């Protein structure tokens, strides 16, 4: 039995620390961007999302999960109240299913419409050490960002969120807003590619299309903070409530850091458990993988029976 030196750790502890010491970078994110129009938009969304967004008002952003009736996560969405409409940003691969869900269940007497915003808007994220400073450098005129609110300045929407104790700044910008892109260039910054975002999101333990596909419960992918068990019914609520009251989560998300490439699939671990690798990314020779394993996995577990990763080194 071969044992390879691999870090298996909670994303909020080990691997994250290294990445967050890097200077903040701007990443282009492939997202699903929709705009819901109509007076009953908030109520309609509140019937669907796992978080209570009944209080969502102009200038606010609230995140939530869209789950199926088995409690599995179908999408993670950020909802921005823009006054007369709600801007909904979700995971790109779930665009079609989320839009169908949002439109199919509109009550017959409510005038709600959903527009495709991907042709007009682009989604970017800033991750790394002190992302707020980068925003301040780009837009010194902008006041300090706070959570659950967004700031709109010169047709750019900025909002602050945290995940696994990492600050993440979301930016929504019109594709034709040349001033925004000019500012980035003037400040000697550049927008990282989509492939780099994949690496960055694994580094901070943020689920992507391979984790948000109706296969995993919110607990499995570290999204339990986006469940409101006291809001009443939403799709999946019965399952989430039962998990909360009668059992404990069985799975958790982990990040593996290696110097050699991993493949998506199941790997055995030295503590007798296993890890299912769901996403992989590489940057500067460093390979990161996101996976789901038993909640009781040992923090010093190593991969076994895995010749191809024998060159791995501890980070």
């Amino acid at each position, binding site marked *: 039995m071969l044992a390879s030196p691999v870090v298996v750790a909670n994303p909020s502890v080990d691997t994250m620390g290294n990445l967050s010491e890097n200077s903040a970078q701007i990443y282009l994110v492939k997202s699903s961007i929709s705009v819901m129009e109509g007076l009953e938009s908030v109520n309609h969304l509140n019937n669907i999302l796992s978080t209570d967004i009944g209080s969502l008002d102009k200038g606010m952003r609230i995140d939530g999960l869209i789950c199926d009736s088995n409690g599995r996560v179908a999408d993670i969405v950020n909802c921005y109240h823009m006054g007369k409409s709600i801007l909904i940003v979700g995971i790109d691969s779930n665009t079609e299913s989320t839009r169908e869900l949002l439109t199919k269940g509109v009550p017959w007497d409510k005038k709600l419409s959903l*527009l495709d915003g991907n042709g007009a808007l682009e989604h970017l994220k800033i991750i790394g050490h002190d992302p707020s400073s980068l925003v301040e450098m780009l837009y010194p005129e902008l006041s300090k960002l706070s959570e659950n609110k967004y700031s709109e300045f010169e047709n750019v929407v900025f909002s602050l969120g945290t995940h696994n104790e990492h600050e993440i700044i979301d930016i929504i910008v019109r594709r034709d807003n040349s001033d925004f892109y000019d500012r980035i260039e003037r400040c000697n910054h550049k927008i990282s590619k989509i492939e780099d975002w994949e690496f960055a999101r694994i580094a901070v333990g943020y689920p992507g299309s391979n984790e948000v596909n109706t296969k995993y419960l919110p607990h499995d992918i570290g999204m339990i903070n986006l469940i409101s068990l006291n809001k009443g019914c*939403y799709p999946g609520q019965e399952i989430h409530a039962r998990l909360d009251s009668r059992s404990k989560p069985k799975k958790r998300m982990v990040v593996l850091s290696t110097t050699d490439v991993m493949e998506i699939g199941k790997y055995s671990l030295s503590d007798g458990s296993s890890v299912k690798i769901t996403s992989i990314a590489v940057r500067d020779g460093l390979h990161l993988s996101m996976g789901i394993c038993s909640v009781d996995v040992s923090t010093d577990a190593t991969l076994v029976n895995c010749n191809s990763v024998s060159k791995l080194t501890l980070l």
Partner: protein
Amino acid sequence: MGILGGEGFSLPVVSKVNVVDVNIELTETAKAALSASMSGEEDTHVLLISAQSGGCSGYMYDMAIVEEPDNSDFQKIQFDRIRIFIHNKDSTMLNGIRVDYKDSLMGGGFQIENPNASKSCGCGQSFS
């Protein structure tokens, strides 16, 4: 102009809706309970059954006695003097339902059994 102003936004996303001729079943107890609830207003009021997003299982039922809506998108099903309206957009989801009424203190009231539902929540008000 604002971030949502200007060009580039598409026409509204429309979910494809299949319209079927709705058949429903109304039990005798449900008929009696509805007659009592409508209290002689059967000529002007109808029972409107609809479905919308929400509930534990994805979609939830809504039943209401309302003045007859002036809308040609409804299918009308008549049981003696009681008229039931179902909107075309809900026809696929609600075709074949059986409306019953249970007279009990716990969990009583109108209940819907839906042959199209792959799953229903514990309270019976939601389905998927």
